């Protein structure tokens, strides 16, 4: 007897980060969350954009 499920997770589970190790401060994760969550006001440091310097 199994519970009804139409999805298998083997592929997804192969290379993913364990739940406890997901770093929400990581830019990629923050971007992911930003698509579905209203993000708090931008408090992050910005990169320098001045053309005549780095």
């Amino acid at each position, binding site marked *: 007897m199994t519970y009804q499920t139409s999805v298998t997770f083997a592929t997804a589970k192969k290379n993913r980060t364990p*739940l406890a190790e997901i770093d*929400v401060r990581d830019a990629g994760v923050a971007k992911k969350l930003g698509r579905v*969550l209203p993000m708090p006001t931008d408090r992050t*440091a910005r990169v*320098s954009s*001045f053309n005549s310097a*780095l």
Partner: protein
Amino acid sequence: MTGPLVPFREIVLKVHSRCDLACDHCYIYEHADQSWRTRPRTISDEAISWTALRLAEHAKAHALPSVSVILHGGEPLLAGPARLRRVCEELTRALDGVAALDLRIHTNGLQLSPRYLDLFEEFGVRVGISLDGDRAANDRHRRFADGRSSHSQVLKAVALLRQDRYRPLDLGLLCTVDAANDPVAVYDALAALDPPRIDFLLPHATWDEPPPRPGGSPTEYADWLLTVFDRWDAQGRPMPVRLFESVLSTLSGGPSLTESLGLAPTDLVVVETDGALEQVDSLKSAYEGAAATGFDVFSHSFDEVAAHPGVRTRQLGLAGVSETCRECPVVRSCGGGLYTHRYRSEPAEAGTGAPGGFDNTSVYCADLEALIRGIESRTAAASVSPALADTGELMVAQEELTRSLLAGLHAELGGRGGAEWQEAWELAGAVEQHSDGLDEVLAHPYTRTWLIDAMAALREARPGALDTALRLRSYVAAAVVRGRLDLPVRVGLTDGVLHLPTLGTLRTGTGGEAEVRAVEQGFLVRTPTAELLVGHPGGTTPYWRPVRHLRRDGVPVLALDDLDPYRDCFGTPVHPGLGDEAAAGWSDRLAAAWRLLGDTVPEQTAEAGRTLSTLTPLLTADTPARAPGHHGHGALGVPLEGGAEELAPALLRGLRRARLRALTEVTDLYALDGEWLRPAPWQEEPVPLSALLAGAYERVGLAAYDPRHRDQARRALDTLQDAAELTVGGKSLLAVLREEADRG
């Protein structure tokens, strides 16, 4: 000019106004503005103190988390170590406890020595160096006044900065392009120095003083840069190149990374050696006094400069570029080019419509367009999310999103969940490792709804926010049951009810806590007063209501979820709970509708069968299109009433909306939505791109079922064709939609 004031986050502090090189392409000394002649050579103590004070006051007033100060010139090292120490000390002291201070210096490197670098190490000043490439390229402009080469001295400075001790201070190399130089030789020479970052600058030019084009091509600079891009790309992009990274970022919907590209509002101000506050100093290439504001640090706040019309003009985004630029498909990436490069002192000849001033395209317009399109054509295939073309990848991305939200909730709690949360969180990790139970529960669409609600509740400090978060325990309990793991899970009982997501609802009749444990026959719930066994597959009992499933021939098995407390997320009322007879009748009608879809739109129906997991009955047929973020992929709200003829198009419409929403939740299809309004063939009022794309996406799908939608679908696709908002992903989706529409 409207819109809120944009605070300055970047201050260019001119600490010395003269240079020990005589580069003939320098915008400070060789272009229209000659104000350097009347400036003090070195910044005064008073100007330093007032700058630090003004900056701290500005950062505090706008609650800025960090500010960057770029020590610049002339040649800033000519200010000498003592003066630079004073600058660093005063700025560090003033910003202490107010905002993080990011100190940088940009130098030609000639004077760089351990004496300076020790000082920079002490204050965390990072160092960028100008170098135009190999010796031949660098010697073309970067010479001493007597004509001597500076190349070997700059290489010594770079080598010094690369020593282990100073390496953390190294910002990289800044190279001004000369189209007469060999692009590969220039890039190779820079890359050989292993800098942490490179940027290439277009030489400053205006319509009055156009850039040299020694080869005669109207896209000579783009061709040069694309040659470098190809070399850089072929080498695996060994270091970031700011210009390229900026284009790649904007093509994918992200921000621009340099003021020379993109529509981001300017947030930098220049403080001259005499304390004068000026706009960005590349304006000195336009005309005498172009950068002046009339303000200075002694008498004026940074807010006053931020409100200056010249500054505000460069903060208007799309409204701040020329009319030609506003209609251009690449404007989101180029942003009309560097403001200075748009300047023309007199209106162009009659008929061209080019006015005097800055309301023009860039003198590099053709180059910028060719560069952006060139980078796009080279990288689009690899930049597009695989979720766009592969349903399996979309499902994986959706699950990763839900897992990230759960991790985000854990971080948001920051320990506030206490032992109860910690226990559930650790169990979740264990369940994930040992079974698919947690994956199955996280894939349930309304788990996403709970996570988003819990995050919002915590952020808004709503009463009961912690209890909402602690519902994790019931999700973990459901996962343990599904995974048949021998792990007891403590759960909270809300008003005598325990809902186990994806499984069903248990009426315990008591409050407090219970323990859920998987057993051979099903699962056991131990409350303070009773022990309740729910057997597999769990038929209805006086205390247990399982989630029903649609089981009909030729139709995928789907959960008919009228129990989940988070199912009310469709923008229209959900049914409070079906009786057996109503559920059976609804199932029959849904199955008939599904078969009808299978006969008329077999591809779409098969596709839906792979992604759809849950149907929830709605009280009305009025289902508005919803923004992303309400539930996970796989759920549809479907009206309870109506026969197969009514339910089939409703299902198809819902499936199309759900698919597009799922895509927008995991990849960026457009940016700057709402900056333009475009005609929509199905209504009088123009709409933002998101609405146009959603309408087109829906109608292309519906047209296969009902050809009356075909004309509107095609017209919407035509309007979308050159929309600047679309990212590379959005364009890829548009191409897929075109093919689908052509197939009929």
